[in-house]
């Protein structure tokens, strides 16, 4: 029972970002579970619908679920992401979700990191943000969350980048580069259950872990840090290297820079996120936005395969 294509009204009507020229992508994200034995009932919570934001327009997004679920309903979570609740109530041994969407991402404006305010000033301004709606929204990312709690280790690591008076974006980019240099990308080193302290100790992990470290370091110095889940374009533009984390779900972090707004930084690739980064959802950490979470009755273990294909539809950008 696939949903009809669903254009995201607010951004279709907004012609602003289109002037900057963006890249249109076709996204296909297939998540497939094998349960071994019959599962009689399963409940799932999916964060697989790409969310619009000022640099991203979602032209259509369609989730197809096999077997056809008895219940499917969407709601918006506390962070503004679209969540899909799905229940399969017939015995089933496999479960497949295909997210098929078309998204346009615009080039971010050129950032002059040195001209952003000192990070301490950004921290102090949090409590007197002019727009009260934003204030409540932004400040929530500066506190501990389920998977990311600040610690002296994180503060110590962060303090080497967040030196007194340093412009906030400069410090954040420096932190990002240091994580890229100090940590080894190693998919065998961690699981979703690995505590952040272990990642800090062993200096190995994957993009989720590195994003958590950025978020934890930001919170340790009192700044809001957001966890972003999304994708990278699969094949790089000509002449550019293929990015780590293409073909799978990716994750990076976002730092609040005051008047400039949120700056997305990807410690896995040591890059500020640009038009190669497609956002699905954001929250305080992975736990808030994990792409698929479920509770099963029956079955015997499960195996999971995920494939992501991000294909530019034209050569713009």
């Amino acid at each position: 029972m696939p949903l009809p294509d669903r254009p995201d009204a607010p951004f279709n009507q907004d012609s602003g970002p289109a002037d900057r020229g963006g890249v249109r992508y076709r996204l296909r994200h297939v998540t497939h579970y094998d349960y071994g034995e019959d599962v009689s009932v399963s409940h799932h919570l999916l964060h697989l619908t790409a969310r619009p934001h000022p640099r991203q327009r979602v032209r259509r997004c369609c989730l197809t679920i096999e077997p056809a679920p008895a219940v499917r309903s969407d709601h918006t979570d506390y962070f503004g992401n679209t969540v899909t609740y799905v229940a399969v109530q017939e015995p089933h041994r496999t479960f497949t979700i295909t997210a098929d969407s078309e998204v346009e991402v615009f080039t971010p404006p050129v950032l002059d990191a040195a001209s952003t305010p000192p990070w301490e000033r950004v921290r102090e301004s949090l409590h007197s943000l002019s727009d009260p709606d934003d204030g409540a929204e932004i400040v929530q990312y500066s506190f501990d969350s389920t998977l990311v709690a600040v610690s002296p280790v994180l503060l110590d690591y962060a303090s080497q980048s967040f030196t007194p008076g340093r412009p906030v974006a400069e410090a954040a980019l420096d932190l990002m580069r240091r994580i890229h240099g100090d940590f080894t990308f190693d998919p065998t080193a961690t699981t979703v259950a690995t505590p952040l302290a272990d990642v800090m100790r062993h200096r190995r992990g994957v993009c989720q872990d590195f994003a958590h470290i950025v978020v934890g370091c930001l919170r340790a110095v009192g700044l809001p840090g957001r966890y972003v889940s999304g994708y990278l374009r699969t094949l790089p533009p000509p002449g550019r290297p293929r990015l780590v984390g293409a073909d799978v779900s990716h994750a990076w972090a976002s730092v609040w820079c005051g008047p400039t707004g949120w700056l997305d930084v990807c410690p896995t690739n040591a890059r500020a996120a640009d038009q190669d980064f497609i956002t699905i959802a954001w929250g305080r950490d992975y736990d808030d936005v994990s792409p698929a979470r479920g509770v099963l009755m029956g079955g015997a273990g499960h195996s999971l395969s995920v494939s992501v294909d991000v294909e530019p539809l034209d050569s713009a950008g």
Partner: protein
Amino acid sequence: MPNRDPTLPDPSAPTPVGLRPVPFLQGSLFGEADALGYGTGQVYDEMVTGQGRLRPHWQSFMGTLGPLDPELMAERWEEARRLLHQNGVTYNIYGDPKGMERPWPLDMVPLLIPAHEWKAVESGLVQRATLLNAVLADLYGPQTLTRSGRLSPAVIHADPGFRRAVHGIRVPNDIHLHFYAADLARAPDGRWWVLSDRTQAPSGSGYALENRAVLAKVLPDSFRHCQVERLSPFFEAFKDTLLSLSPRRETPRVVLLTPGPYNETYFEHVYLARYLGITLVEGADLTVRDRQVFLKTLSGLERVDVILRRLDADFADPLELRADSSLGVAGLIEAVRAGNVALANSLGSGFMESMAVKPSLPMLCRHLLGEELKMPGVAVWWCGDDAERAYVIDHLDGLVVKPAFPSLAFEPIFGADLSAAERMALVERINARPWCYVAQERLALSTAPVWQGGRLQPRPLVLRVFLCARRDGSYAVMPGGLTRVSTESGKLVVSMQRGGGSKDTWILAGRRSDSAPAQPRPQAGQDATEPVLRPAANDLPSRVADSLYWLGRYAERSEGVVRLLRATHTRLTDGNMPGATAQLRPLLCLMAWEGVIPWDLTRVSELGSGRALRNALHTSVVDPDHPNSLRAQVLRLHRTAYSVRDRLSLDMWRVISMLERQSQTPRQKLDAAAMLLRLDDLVTILAAIAGMEQESMTRGPGWRFLDIGRRIERALHTISIMRGLNVQGLDRQEEGTQAATLAVLLELGESVMTYRSRYLTTVRRTPVLELLLSDESNPRALAFQLAALEQHVTALPGTAKPGPGAPTASALSIVQAARASLRNPESLRSSEALNTLLDTLATSLPDISNLLTHAYFSHAFARSA
């Protein structure tokens, strides 16, 4: 009116001086270390004035109490203890395996509160409940309080107890807080202060009900004379509210969701479910289909409309909240979101237990209700606010620092106790994450008289008062409460977990003519359009049926073991018993066959010889670590019974508790005679359990499963004994051995009397086997069990129209085949035929158990993926 001056503690007696009053910790009903300050000479005593005079409202009570004769009081105390025990009032202590089922401590002297004083408490708490609900409605809705900056956004966003998952979900009548409790303390000036708010799933009201039931019996004259306000109208009002929440008008089903028997206040969950007439369920009993909540019963899924939640919200839905929770129901929040089920309290209600929001309550009250806060709270400063943090750091000496949010557990820190270095470290910690800390002023507690050591002694107290929402969103106060007292005057905590006691709380009705019940009686059920509660009695969750089935099996298994042990012990003890020596050998072999003693001990033939045998026999009775000992079987029985305690009568539960106590390992090794007496007692107690099953249980599906368990176990046990005693090869044995074996068979099969009255002859093989195997009129015979099983299986839900290969149909055909083979007179005649019969039955009968499990109990448990 008082006619004599009772003996009172001398208020001028020296009291401990210099004890530091300490503030109150967050926590559960019994875990909290509610602290007290006593003995500064400033505290308020509930009974006497500073001049040592009895307060007016105590005079008539003390008059009816009569002289404080220690013997009379001791008698009353004994009576109260007996009643509490009889009613099974217990509480559990966490983290202590021996802390399960502690008897409930209740003091004989109630706390008395006069009507005029109670009026002030009532109006203060009604306002507070209304305010807390209004704050919840805003924070889980538009959040104007944080968006306008009246409340710091950190108050919600830093608090792990703020449930983002339920933000924006509309709740019926905008009521988030349906049941609320406040802990109160009385300051030296006589005013009541709020120490803490309980908004998650407040406990204690059931214990208050039980305290009332006991005291009204123990002090009937005082109770009548004092015109104490009744508690029941409050619970009727609450039940009416629960019904009004139902999304369906037609006979809604209301359930009480408990974390299970190991929760500290499980007794209360059982008690309240019974009192309110609703079904007690655990998370595993519920399932969500089509965004609706259902109860899994034997006859299928039954819709649930309202859930009275005694499970912390965090554990309520592993899909959207804590994924590691096995206590909750996957999809519950989605059902709430769809408006198909109502929860009381709402899933976000626990947020109001936050200390960070307390300093803002006076401001919020003015802003949201347009009124001044009537009842003061203990002063709290939240370090998330710069000015308050500065005050805290400047005044650390006089304050106690505590976690701002209930989920951040750390011990309170007394500023005055800190060294300069510790103080600096604390300030540094506070500055690093200020929003995590509050500081509280110290507070003294009032004292009330407690009967202890043969006299009344002043002891510090904390009063918990309960409120419930009415259907229109206003609040009703329970006219009473749960008073907790410390058992030591100098003890710094009032905590059940640490040995404190409880008191009944009597609100004395005013004598004025306008003192009619303050709360109008609820009108539920009188209006034809009003929903009427679906009776709880018909709901039998599959999990409960499963446990009852195993209860039947364990009870029968215990009986089998105890008879075997008694038969052996008797013959070991009494060498003069005819045939004792000859019968001991088959008995020992049977015990080895049943895995009760090792095989090598069966070769000891001389009576009284063999220390190893005597030790093994002792072990086989009392050792809980021996898997087949009587003690181990009884523990299984007890544990199973515990998990369905709410389904057993108090009498049944009392007998099962007695069984558990009587089978405990004695401090000293019992001598042979004492052991025999003990075994006799256990046989009697187990017979009482079996008797109650037959005579005191309604013949519903629950009883049926219990009896199926018993019948299957007895059938299997009979076959096992036959094979263990090698009945097949009996005719090849010499006459003495044959006679001994048959005598043992008859004794273990409880059929000695029947045999003698029927045959009046020496014991012979064929009549004995007929009596124990094929005689359907002998309740101990295998055929009797099979006949009962056939009846039960036929009557089970779903058997009437089974599909091909339905498990119940297969079970039925096994039973029928077994009955047919027993009816064949040839099957008992020859050794070969008997051998085949026993082997076949030993293989086929256990399948019945598997088939029924598959048909009724195997509701797969949820797991995360």
